[in-house]
């Protein structure tokens, strides 16, 4: 899995940090920064969630993940709530 981030589009809502704290952080102005360009499979769900909630869409998955993430947008949440 490879994640891309376009920092110039970030609106600093902090949602990606809440969803995937091991992958994203923020600089002093709240703009998202990527901690891990190639997060492991154990972080896949967190990254998908970050993509889904990203306000301005600067967080992008690589092509293979994108299809899966798009499918997930709007899907019914499955199982109990899990917060990262």
């Amino acid at each position, binding site marked *: 899995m490879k994640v891309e981030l376009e920092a110039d*589009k970030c*609106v*600093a*809502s*902090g*949602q990606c*940090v*809440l*969803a995937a704290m091991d992958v994203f952080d*923020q600089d*002093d*102005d*709240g*703009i998202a920064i990527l901690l891990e360009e190639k997060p492991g499979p154990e972080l896949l769900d967190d990254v998908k*969630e970050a993509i*889904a*909630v990203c*306000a*301005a*869409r600067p967080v992008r998955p690589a092509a293979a993940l994108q299809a899966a993430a798009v499918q997930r*947008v*709007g*899907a*019914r*949440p499955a*199982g*109990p*709530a*899990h*917060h990262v």
Partner: protein
Amino acid sequence: MADTLAGPVPEATDTVPEFPMSREARCPFDPPPALKDLQAEAPLTKVRLWDGSEPWLVTRYTEQRAILGDARVSADIDTPGYPNKAASGGGKLSFIMMDDPEHARLRRMATAPFAIKRVEAMRPTVQKIVDDLIDDLLAGPGPVDLVDAFALPIPSLVICELLGVPYDDHAMFQDNTKTMVRTTSTTEERNAATRVIGGYLGGLIGQRLAEPQDDLLSSIAGRVAAGELTHGQATEMALLLLFAGHETTANMIALGTLALLQNPDQLALLRETDDPKVVASAVEELLRYLNIAHEGKRRAVTEDIEIAGQVLKAGDGVILVNEIANRDPEVFADPDKLDITRDARRHVAFGFGIHQCLGQPLARMELQVVYGTLYKRIPTLKLACALEDVKFKHDAFIYGVHGLPVTW
């Protein structure tokens, strides 16, 4: 009386519904039934506003997110077709009513204090504010108005601390904010209220220009000194942050408490947990369920957009009501049920796209502290009047309750 009114009357064949619609008095937490009917019928439909204009109403979650995330819509009230909430008044609220690139330039001047780590660093301060206010409640007799004694002071104290506004002046900015958000305020009343808070904040920014301190007002004043903002733009930005920082969270605290009191099984889950994840989940669900910003996001189309079998033409207005998006049964199963154990994180209570709420990390943290503390400290908390006697803010752009008599 209707029969004494002169002028044209709507034709009987007229099928474009008026917006906004009224909630069902017996279901104060639910969107207007007419809105839900429109959602069931189609993802987009036309509605008629107070001025006779007929913008699009976007009823479903997927289409709302698509349009709010689309660069071909404008949030600027001066863009042709923008669906106005009222005749005028209040002017532009800084960057939330601007488009990129100016929107992004101004918004980025205010983002730093709302970064997750900075907000987390404020959590102990917020916890102390909440604990002290509960001590005060418990020291006195009930019943009390939870809005005045608890819900309004918490976010007001927090945003004052963050901005560097003296809390002693809270009555002035709280009262004028009420006038600004009251739907029945006249243009003159709304302008006057905006001028009072603006004049006050403009004065504080002037002071910070002379003597900078460690607060957000000083940082905004620094932009004025650097020639990046006019004094007027700085004042507007400060007004937006002060206004959005207290009025919204205060309504979430009071309305959320009432919703929990009406759903004792959910309140019990919250009261009995020590798990911050359960509390965080409850905050997301209450945001989804309550939707206090109930008047709808407003946009004007700047280039034709094809969506859901319709074409939104340049110059069309668009209204996106998050309260029905968050009750979309395609996205949230059994959407009218308050269920703090569901994963509600993808709600659009803070909006979506580039204008998504700037202060949401702070709002989340404040609500986590409040919901995680109040019902544990006062486990016998209960409503001190009948639900029918609670006055809901049907007459405000931000929904909530005017007062909440509680005892314990």
